[in-house]
């Protein structure tokens, strides 16, 4: 107990260790918060959700906080649904036709154009599909006829895919054409902020037939983390990446160092052929190409994170660390108290577990802490190689998706840099603590 307190008081002499420790505590808090705030099953079903789950979010939108650094704010996403009571909806039934009028007045206050505009229609009818026509009234009083078409039970109308509309807007893409000044001022490529109104007139041919519409104006920013190419909120993977990375890093580091240490202890204690065999295995292990074997296992058998975890441990047990432990154990083995234990007849097992192993724990802890970040990065590396767990949202997965889908080439830096920064912070905080611990515990490094 006393030694732990003195260790912590010594640790505060190293500012980098202190900063690292604080960051580690924050990371753990963040992970625990994530697990409770967004339970695993919800996160997975959201992350694996397709366009039906994520139809309301823009594609590869930057995080909302980029607007703090921009002179002209990028537009945010907003949506109106007549079924939920947004806008004005009137119905008028006469002559076996039901005339429905939906109006969505909205304030557009960005100088940049929206990414996309879509209307999702739902309708109820028995036989004959309702017919709708859509128009937009701009702040400068123009009335733009968008289109007329019949709608099935569900119908998605994307402005950008309507070639006729594009022709009517003098070849401008609809997202731009509707929101910019026309036509004299073609030089100016900024949107006009102000009060817009989208009007939908629908004619249904049955008494109880009705039409509802949901208008979504996709912006260019979303949430605190942005979205990816499948419109998913990157925030989910950023949050869930933390507990996964910490678990993977901790378990592999713990599994590896503890096993390695025990094997080294047995080897040095029994000596002879046991030691010799361990040494030879270490040498063979040195020649085994680590990542290639993991790639082999991943392609042939399973990409599950837990299988990978076991493989990583199995391949690292006989790593270089075993020699370091061995050197220390060889010294401890000759210590008088070990001889005393042998004299009073302690069993081999007892000497190894109670006399040798405890002495090496001060050396083991820094090693363990330093191993954690390399394993956290290993998880990301495996994902980048395409061996990521197919189910889990992780930081590595974000980087992989980003690089794969040209985020770097197309300037969507947030997509790759956000997970990279979190990885960096995680890695650095553990490494800073580990390096300082090494200097505290390792007498040879004292004062150097």
């Amino acid at each position, binding site marked *: 107990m006393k030694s732990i307190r003195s260790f912590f008081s010594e640790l505060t002499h190293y500012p980098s260790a202190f900063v690292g420790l604080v960051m580690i505590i924050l990371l753990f808090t963040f992970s625990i918060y994530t697990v409770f705030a967004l339970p695993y099953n919800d996160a997975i079903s959201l992350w694996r959700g397709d366009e039906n789950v994520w139809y309301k979010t823009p594609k590869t939108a930057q995080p909302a906080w980029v607007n703090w650094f921009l002179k002209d704010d990028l537009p945010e996403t907003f949506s109106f649904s007549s079924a939920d009571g947004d806008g004005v909806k009137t119905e008028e039934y006469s002559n076996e036709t039901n005339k429905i009028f939906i109006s969505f007045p909205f304030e557009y206050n960005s100088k940049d154009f929206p990414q996309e505009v879509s209307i999702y229609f739902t309708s109820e009818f028995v036989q004959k599909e309702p017919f709708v026509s859509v128009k937009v009234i701009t702040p400068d009083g123009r009335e733009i006829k968008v289109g007329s078409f019949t709608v099935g039970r569900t119908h998605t109308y994307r402005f950008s895919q309507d070639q006729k509309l594009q022709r009517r807007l003098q070849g401008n893409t609809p997202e731009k054409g509707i929101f910019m000044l026309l036509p004299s001022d073609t030089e100016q490529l900024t949107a006009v902020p102000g009060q817009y109104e989208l009007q939908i007139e629908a004619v249904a041919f049955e008494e109880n037939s009705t039409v509802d519409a949901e208008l979504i104006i996709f912006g260019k920013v979303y949430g605190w983390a942005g979205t990816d190419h499948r419109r998913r909120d990157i925030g989910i993977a950023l949050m869930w990446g933390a507990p996964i990375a910490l678990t993977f890093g901790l378990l592999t580091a713990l599994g590896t160092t503890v096993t390695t240490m025990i094997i080294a202890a047995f080897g040095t204690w029994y000596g002879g052929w046991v030691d010799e065999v361990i040494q030879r295995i270490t040498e063979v292990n040195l020649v085994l190409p680590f990542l290639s074997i993991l790639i*082999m296992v991943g392609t*042939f058998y399973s990409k599950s994170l837990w299988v990978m975890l076991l493989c990583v441990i199995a391949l690292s047990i006989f790593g270089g660390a075993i020699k370091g432990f061995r050197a220390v154990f060889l010294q401890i083995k000759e210590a008088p108290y070990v001889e005393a234990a042998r004299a009073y007849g302690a069993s081999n097992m007892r000497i190894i577990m109670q006399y040798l192993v405890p002495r090496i724990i001060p050396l083991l802890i820094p090693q363990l802490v330093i191993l954690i970040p390399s394993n956290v990065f290993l998880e990301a590396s495996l994902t980048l190689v*395409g061996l990521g767990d197919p189910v889990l949202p992780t930081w590595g997965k974000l980087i992989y998706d980003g690089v794969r889908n040209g985020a770097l080439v197309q300037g969507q830096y947030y997509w790759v840099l956000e997970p990279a920064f979190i990885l960096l912070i995680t890695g650095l905080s553990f490494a800073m603590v580990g390096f300082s611990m090494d200097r505290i515990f390792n007498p040879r490094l004292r004062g150097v």
Partner: protein
Amino acid sequence: MAESTLQSPVPVVAKKKSSESAVLRVGKYMAVRLLTMAFTVVVGLYLTILIANMGGYVDEIRRGEIRENIQQAVMNDQSLRNLTGDQKLKLIEERVSNEEERLGLNRPFAIRSVAFLKDAITLNLGFAEFMNADNGSRSVRIIVLERLPSTLVLFGTTNIILFFVTLFWALTLSRHYGSWLDRFIVATSPMSAAPGWFYGIFLIVFFAAYLKVLPFGGMVDVPPPDNRIEYGLSLLKHMLLPTLAIAMNQLTFAIYNNRTFFLIYSSEDYVEMAKAKGLTSREVERKYILRPTLPTNITNFAFLLIGVWGGAPIFEGVFNWPGLGRTTLVAAGLFDTPVIVGTTVIFAYLLAMTVFLLDFVYALVDPRVKIGNEGSN
């Protein structure tokens, strides 16, 4: 913090007569190491085969190879030209089953695995399922060996630069202990926690995507320049970012490590003695600090190199470097089993050669090998 040696050379040369020349001793030491290393590689390859064959994949490679050879033979055989397609197919099937029986593909795995081992050792790696070499060949050996030079150019150059920069920088720092540069190195040494590819992404974002001064990846411009000098310059330009990425990952940590060793050694009594004798600080450094720490440095460097080799697939993937590592990645993506196994075998060889080469340098600089063991007794 790997302070240990790859393998303690002492027991190997324990009983040598002092009359033997240093060259002979180094030679003997290397011969013994070569034998151990050969044994190690064989065991390593055998393990690789075991892992690969857990699902019968090596069998499939062998069967595919047999079929390919027989098909070629039947199609090219002039005397069989007049047979119909069906007859040819039947003939092929017959010969394949004969060949499989002859090679013992129906025997138990324990026996067959020895045959696989022989193939792996002789680099008889079979045929790729989907990938091609640049000359169109589907032989895995050609695909893999064709990619080897690019990998060696990148990692060889980078690591040699890194080794010398580290050594001399660390030596300078140990002289200026406590200076701001020294403290900077100590503070930034935890950067080694992140792998090279990780810094690579930041570098690509900054230099390639944002500043647009360096290429995103690849090895030379497209199309490759005809002129030799231009080709070299283009290669250098493409190597800049990968080298920088490896340096960000390893440099400060390696310097920190070496400097710490130098500091520990520079407080030894014999160093004080040398200083008292009035030797210049250069001489003290060279003969009394660098010399005794060199074996340890080389061992540390070996571990560093092995780490870098291990990360090659992903590193080359990020930088789109057309080397062996990226071939592994592409093969994994295409599920091209023979190529995956083939690259793994080659990587095992590469690692063994690295260890052996460094052992050789080790033997050259470690006085215990050259003088024999009398000194330490």
